[in-house]
């Protein structure tokens, strides 16, 4: 017995070590078994309160990620909105679930490259073929029309920006429904204005009238904001107005966009092609 006590005292350091290790391993195994171990974890009062305070502060740093999530959710909701569906039957059919089907689907994307000062401005986004992006799809953001998809790689796509001399988007005056084509003047090279052409001279116009997409092109859904009328004039001897519009999208600070996939585009273009062939 005395030997044993001697042995204990002689090696007391090692025994203390082993004892503490035993305690910590017990904790470890217990904690693994019951995730909510009540002895030591971050939900206890002191550390929990501290973490809450810290989290209140650090939440601001995660706003960006949070926004990203909300944006994805938004695009899902947009796809589910009534505007994105089209009626199968005529007007007389009562609105119920089965009389609508999906016409537009929205995908959220991030702008990773953008230019505004060229004659032909392109935008690069971080979604590509693997996300189902195809050339010819419309791109919008929460403010309005951004551009049209031109080239697609596996993971990226380039868009013809609204600020492109060859870009022409079918737009209409929301108040009167007269439609024309919205183009950008590359000579003037202003990133916040464009022109609406082909509006006949008998139309009543007012400054700040809203211009939206007409939906004729089968690329853009109807009613996406293009901008507002900045100024208009009727050149002498011309039948059409020259309308300058303020673009609703600020291309200088473009960061997140939605790609619009029109599910009926194929059908519409096929049908319209048929017309042309018949004429010829």
């Amino acid at each position, binding site marked *: 017995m005395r030997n044993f006590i001697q042995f204990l005292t002689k090696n007391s*350091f090692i025994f203390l070590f082993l004892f503490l290790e035993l305690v*910590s391993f017990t904790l*470890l195994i217990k*904690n693994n078994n019951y995730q909510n171990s009540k002895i030591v*974890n971050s939900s206890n009062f002191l*550390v929990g309160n501290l973490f809450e305070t810290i989290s209140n502060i650090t939440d601001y740093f995660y706003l960006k990620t949070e926004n990203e999530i909300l944006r994805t959710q938004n695009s899902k909701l947009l796809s589910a909105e009534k505007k994105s569906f089209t009626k199968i039957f005529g007007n007389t059919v009562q609105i119920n679930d089965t009389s609508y089907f999906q016409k537009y689907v929205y995908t959220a994307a991030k702008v990773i490259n953008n230019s505004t000062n060229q004659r032909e401005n392109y935008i690069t986004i971080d979604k590509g073929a693997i996300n189902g992006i195809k050339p010819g799809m419309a791109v919008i953001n929460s403010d309005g029309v951004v551009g049209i998809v031109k080239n697609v790689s596996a993971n990226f796509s380039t868009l013809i920006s609204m600020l492109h001399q060859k870009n022409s988007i079918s737009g209409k005056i929301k108040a009167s429904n007269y439609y024309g084509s919205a183009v950008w003047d590359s000579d003037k090279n202003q990133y916040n204005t464009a022109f609406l052409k082909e509006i006949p001279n008998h139309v009543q116009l007012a400054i700040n009238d809203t211009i939206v997409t007409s939906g004729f092109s089968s690329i853009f859904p109807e009613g996406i904001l293009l901008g507002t009328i900045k100024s208009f004039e009727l050149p002498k001897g011309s039948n059409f107005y020259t309308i300058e519009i303020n673009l609703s999208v600020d291309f200088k600070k473009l960061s997140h966009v939605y790609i619009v996939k029109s599910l009926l585009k194929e059908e519409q273009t096929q049908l319209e092609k048929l017309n042309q062939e018949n004429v010829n």
Partner: protein
Amino acid sequence: MLIDGIKYTIYFLLLVLIQGLILNNIEFSGYINPYIYVLFILILPFNTSKYTVLVLAFILGLSIDAFSSTAGMHTSATVFMGFLRNYILKLIEPRDGYEISSKPLAEDMGIQWFTTYSTILVLSHHLFLFFIESFKFSQFFTTLGRAIISCVFTLLLIFIVQLFNYKKASRR
């Protein structure tokens, strides 16, 4: 003695807070997590009794575990490190022993001594910790790599902290 006690308590709180609130949130590429809190065990004075070191290591580990909800993990690793410290100090003791007034810091003992001392202890702590964390040997080399890389970063941080002390000491 009392002043020392207060000083080390402040060190303790500071290191736990830095570790729990800042460094635990840093995870470079999922491989590197520096654990600077072990500095507390490193800088305890030479004349601290080995039992005290063990108990302090236990409390330190528990506090860190409280922050990361990993009851026992850091505790076991830190206790292990506190246990080793006793032997390492004996192993690398200078020929004429430790001076009572000096502390296990780079400024007192020289960079070379401190490097050996801290590398051995930090590496053993990290290896212990990462293997306890993964709790298996199937990904032996991944775990080993993580431990070593994290160890390098911890040491880097420790040396940066020492550098601050160094400057202060030489300015006096």
